[in-house]
């Protein structure tokens, strides 16, 4: 009897599977809207464009300190170094500018983008290393130093531009978006946290001495100078350290799931301005 019931349930599941999947996969545009509305409703006092300033949009005291810091920002050296590196030609005479639309100026808000030929999400960091490799140069480390300087410069040239992530009508792009979303909401690590546990459920709350940033627009500020790191960090660095902090095993920087996560998070932040490079405690 039990077995029959189990079998029936299994059968029901099997037949129901395709249709539920379709129902679950809400329209990404509607999803982005719902995501944004969640934060707007949760924090009615915060202006929409201010979410990109992370913890400073949540905490008045931190905000004052940050405003003073911004007069002479700690990412200044990285920015200068990035500008210099960006214009320096490779051994073959080409530069980074040759790899990007509009010669790389003011394009940060379009990354990550879905590359239809490769069938995968290409982040700005990946695009920079692809550019290096196409020109016979060794790839850079994804987490800090040169890579962060380059993305800092590129972000700076896009400051204030609205995030403009395209989701082409391609099932692979859609799948990447879904994978990213799933990664975002999946609990992991010894502490059993998902990205959302902190950045959707608890923005503005303290986690020890830190104030958690809202997920909406969280990547718009990348890369960041973190006083805790006493240096710059890229989106890759942020993802991997987040995973270690919840006592999980981080993926490799620019692993497919991280790229998909970046795609998802950037897409749902469409319309919010690029504020990077940022400075965080």
């Amino acid at each position, binding site marked *: 009897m039990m077995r029959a019931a189990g079998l029936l349930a299994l059968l029901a599941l099997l037949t129901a599977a395709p249709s539920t999947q379709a129902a679950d996969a809400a329209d990404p545009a509607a999803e982005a809207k719902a995501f944004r509305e969640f934060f707007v409703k949760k924090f009615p006092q915060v202006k929409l464009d201010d979410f990109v300033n992370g913890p400073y949009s949540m905490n008045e005291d931190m905000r004052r300190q940050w405003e003073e810091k911004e*007069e*002479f920002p*700690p990412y*200044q*050296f990285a920015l*200068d*170094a990035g500008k*210099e590196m960006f214009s320096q030609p490779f051994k073959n005479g080409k530069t980074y500018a040759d790899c990007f639309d509009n010669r790389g100026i003011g394009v940060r808000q379009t990354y990550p983008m879905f590359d239809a030929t490769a069938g995968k999400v290409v982040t700005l960091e990946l695009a920079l290393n692809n550019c290096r490799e196409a020109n016979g140069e060794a790839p850079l480390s994804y987490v800090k130093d040169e890579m962060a300087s380059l993305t800092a410069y590129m972000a700076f040239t896009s400051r204030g531009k609205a995030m403009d992530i395209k989701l082409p009508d391609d099932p692979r792009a859609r799948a990447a978006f879904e994978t990213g979303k799933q990664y975002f909401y999946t609990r992991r690590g010894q502490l059993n946290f998902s990205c959302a546990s902190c950045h959707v459920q608890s923005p503005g709350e303290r986690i020890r001495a830190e104030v958690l940033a809202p997920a909406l627009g969280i990547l718009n500020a990348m890369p960041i100078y973190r006083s805790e790191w*006493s*240096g710059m960090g890229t989106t890759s660095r942020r993802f991997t350290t987040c995973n270690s902090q919840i006592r999980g095993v981080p993926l490799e920087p620019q692993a497919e799931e991280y790229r998909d996560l970046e795609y998802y998070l950037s897409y749902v932040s469409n319309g919010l301005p690029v504020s990077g490079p940022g400075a965080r405690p």
Partner: protein
Amino acid sequence: MASSIRVRATANGGTTEVQALIQHPMDTGLVKDAQGQLIPAHFIQQLSFEHGGKTVFLADWGPAVAKDPYLKFSFKGAAKGDELKIGWTDNKGASDSTTARIG
């Protein structure tokens, strides 16, 4: 190589406000690297700001100052357009200096 010193000095009434950011590792000598080897101490020992041949700010620093230090102070007696000379020396004998125009 760009200068390791960034300065902004603005005269406002009788006082000039100076902000500076210096790129320096400021290693304490107590930290180990990824291989477990101690990173030798490397820090700025003296930092000075001169205006019209007179030292207006002199700091004796040690390993307790953070990496890429930032500082801000103000002094009297300078006018817009004056030159400010900034220099540091570290415990390894390295140094850097730059000049900035008061705006």
